[in-house]
């Protein structure tokens, strides 16, 4: 049984209870960091990672590198890429892929699965409440102005009942482990979390390129995601429609996640539509097809709220579908995710999440938060300013790792710049202690070296919640870097959840 730690989290014993001597990867040294393979300051491997560790040790690094290069070339050829547009060119890039998988033992995963499901249930309960009775605000558990004054709070959603009371049908929870090996939630992604296509493509790539590494291991399958997503869409289609038509709504080829949109529509066997392919007539949504206008019943939309419907939201949006919101309110079309979920994954609301879980579910959070200081609160602001050189300071509205100050790694000038910004607009910031993210062996320049990782599991919620047994392991490829975002030099790894 996992032991409960003092801070309410759970310590996973990754180090061996009965260490058996295993050959170490030559020269691999995680130093003081928690290692996904070795645990904390261990010199021999944790049992769950042992077979992979041994096999890796048995492959000549030059061969490993050659196979890794082939794998990356294949990702490029298959167009598992995002496109960078410059003035002259459109350049395809792959998300750098590291061939050494991250391995998660079954017991550890069971806990993550329960923790993620709990979090998703709380997020959906919270969203229902803030768009209906607002009891949690009346009870003072979460400050009302934090929610009602949030730029992602959509007052158009007040009183609207989404099917199954679900708002965040696809949710990604970002997890990190610090030096103590405890998984903590770093961020919730309740709007349009991306990256799941890499989880599945990485797996297919690994099985093609490194079947020997996985030989004899019972690794849980990730291939069911498309079917589950399609089922969730079917669940939210208007009642009484047999064989509902579903589609994925994308902003189009210029979106950096366009590959994922392709991937998911292919997995689901549904059309990938853009705003121009859809039309609303009499509050019903239609697709323009070769046979004329065909009714559409549920949409997995990868367009932000703001751009979804120029009649209700931003009038200058060319990506959306005029009239879509009214069709939605009338119950004629299912939308995943619902509109207005951004208020739940706001970085300031995040700080209240343990209390939100307790409020709705009457449970302690299975996965604790990273300790967070809210600068809109006087004591949080004071603590942040007093300790800024030791803290990570984040603007609440940004994503993709932008605008973050990592105090211990920042220059005097950077610290002072952020300090001024925090003083000027405290409610736009939170701060957290710096987490020394866990590391995982990573192949770089022919050597296996420790690099920091995080983990984003994905949950799909229709009539029930299902957590994909795997997740996106992002890895910061630059030495010493703690920023795993793909826009900032991050790559990804396959994530093996053992059965």
């Amino acid at each position, binding site marked *: 049984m996992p032991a409960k730690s003092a801070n309410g989290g759970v310590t996973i014993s990754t180090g061996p209870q009965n260490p058996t001597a295993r050959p170490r990867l030559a020269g691999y040294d995680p130093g003081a960091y928690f290692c996904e393979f070795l645990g904390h300051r261990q010199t021999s491997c944790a049992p769950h990672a042992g077979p992979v560790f041994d096999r890796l040790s048995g492959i000549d690094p030059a061969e490993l590198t050659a196979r890794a290069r082939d794998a990356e070339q294949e990702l490029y*050829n298959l167009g598992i890429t995002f496109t960078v547009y410059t003035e002259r060119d459109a350049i395809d890039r792959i998300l750098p892929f590291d061939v050494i998988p991250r391995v998660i033992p079954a017991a550890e995963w069971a806990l993550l699965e329960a923790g993620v499901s709990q979090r998703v249930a709380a997020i959906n309960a919270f969203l229902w409440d803030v768009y209906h009775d607002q009891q949690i605000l009346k009870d003072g558990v979460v400050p009302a102005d934090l929610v009602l004054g949030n730029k992602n709070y959509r007052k158009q959603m007040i009183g609207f009942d989404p099917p199954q009371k679900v708002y965040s049908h696809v949710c990604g929870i970002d997890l990190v482990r610090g030096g103590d090996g405890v998984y903590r939630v770093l961020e919730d992604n309740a709007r349009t979390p991306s990256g799941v296509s890499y989880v599945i493509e990485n797996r297919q790539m690994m099985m093609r390129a490194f079947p020997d590494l996985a030989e004899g291991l019972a690794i849980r399958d990730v291939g069911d995601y498309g079917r589950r997503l399609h089922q969730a869409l079917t669940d939210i289609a208007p009642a009484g429609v047999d064989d509902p038509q579903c589609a994925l709504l994308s902003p189009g*080829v210029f979106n950096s996640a366009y590959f994922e949109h392709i991937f998911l529509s292919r997995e689901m066997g549904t059309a990938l539509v853009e705003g121009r392919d859809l039309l609303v007539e009499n509050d019903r949504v*239609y697709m323009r097809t070769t046979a*004329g*206008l065909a009714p559409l019943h549920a949409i997995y939309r990868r367009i932000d709220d703001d751009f979804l419907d120029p009649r209700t939201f931003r009038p200058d949006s060319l990506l959306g579908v005029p009239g879509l919101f009214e069709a939605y309110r009338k119950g004629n079309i299912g939308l995943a995710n619902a509109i207005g979920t951004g208020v739940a994954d706001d970085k300031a609301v995040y700080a209240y999440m343990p209390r939100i879980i307790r409020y709705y579910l009457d449970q302690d959070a299975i996965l604790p938060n990273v300790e967070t200081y809210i600068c809109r609160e006087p004591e949080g602001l004071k603590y942040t300013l007093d300790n800024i050189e030791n803290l990570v300071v984040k603007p609440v509205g940004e994503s993709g790792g932008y605008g973050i100050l990592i105090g211990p790694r920042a220059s005097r000038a950077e610290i002072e710049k952020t300090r001024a910004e925090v003083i000027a607009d405290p409610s736009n910031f939170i701060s957290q202690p710096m987490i020394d993210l866990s590391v995982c062996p990573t192949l770089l320049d022919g050597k296996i070296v420790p690099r920091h990782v995080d983990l984003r599991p994905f949950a799909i919620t229709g009539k029930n919640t299902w957590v994909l047994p795997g997740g996106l392991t992002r890895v910061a490829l630059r030495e010493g870097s703690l920023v795993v975002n793909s826009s900032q030099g991050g790559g990804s790894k396959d994530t093996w959840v053992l059965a």
Partner: protein
Amino acid sequence: MSAPLLARYAECIFWMARYVERAENLARLIDVNEVFSHDRRGSHNWDAVIALNSDRERYIERHGERFAPELVIHFYCLDANNPTSIFSCVRAARENARALRPLISTEMWSHLNVFYNDLNAMRAQPLALGAVSKFCSKIKQAAQAHTGITEGTFYRDQGWYFYQIGKAIERADQTTRLVDIKYHALLPSLSDVGTDIDISQWNAVLRSAAGYHAYRRVHPRGMSPKSVSGFLVFNPLFPRSVVTCVRQVDSLLTELCTRYNLRSGHKAMERLDELRAALDSWTVDSVVNRGLHESLDFVQGQLIGVTDGIQRAFFGVDQDTPLAV
């Protein structure tokens, strides 16, 4: 009842097929022109190639009146700024394929993606004259690989029909252009009649359409402008002849509309019927007497009309009222 096909997909797949076909035809033409079309002083004459795509103005804009072989070759092979270059065709095919990735097979996409990326990498260096033939072979092979992959992997519902229709229309169009331009460019002056040059030029025309050997099976002896033109326009067994392609479009379109209960294809059908009726009533002699250029012009006009009809009927241009729900 199978899944409805998004109008935009139908359009993309129609054009994807056309662009690959166009790239292949252009590669054939350049290759053959390079190898066979020397004039009597042994130099290349590229006028016909430039005329084929009505590119003269655009070419002159870029290069002035200098028709140096390496400039023309670059203009047609790898020039990203010339919309009628092979590179531009492949890029357009791949862009369409990108939008179609949820629909087409992974292998179709991946092949076009690699095809494009290879060409794009080749643009770093100018294409040497000595390498042109090899380049053209590569394009032809890649286009044929595309055709083969499509044949073997592409699911044959509505999208497949639009693909085949696009391909056949483009092929018919390319053949009419080839015959039209060459016939007039190569009409022998009195002193040339029956000389070796004349024959080698017509030889080249046939080879541009991959039709030399097939032609020889039908006409073991002799070669005249009329017989070559007649073969390329009317032969019902040659895969690139105008008649073969038009018949293909006709049966595909009929089958598409019947099988998927598409009721708005009649405009395209009407234009196609007119075209078929004309082709059925013509002979080589009547066409040449009436004026080959005018006849081929009529064919091209009808093909444009068919394309327009397909566009209006199926690509979402004129849709505003929902079907009965």
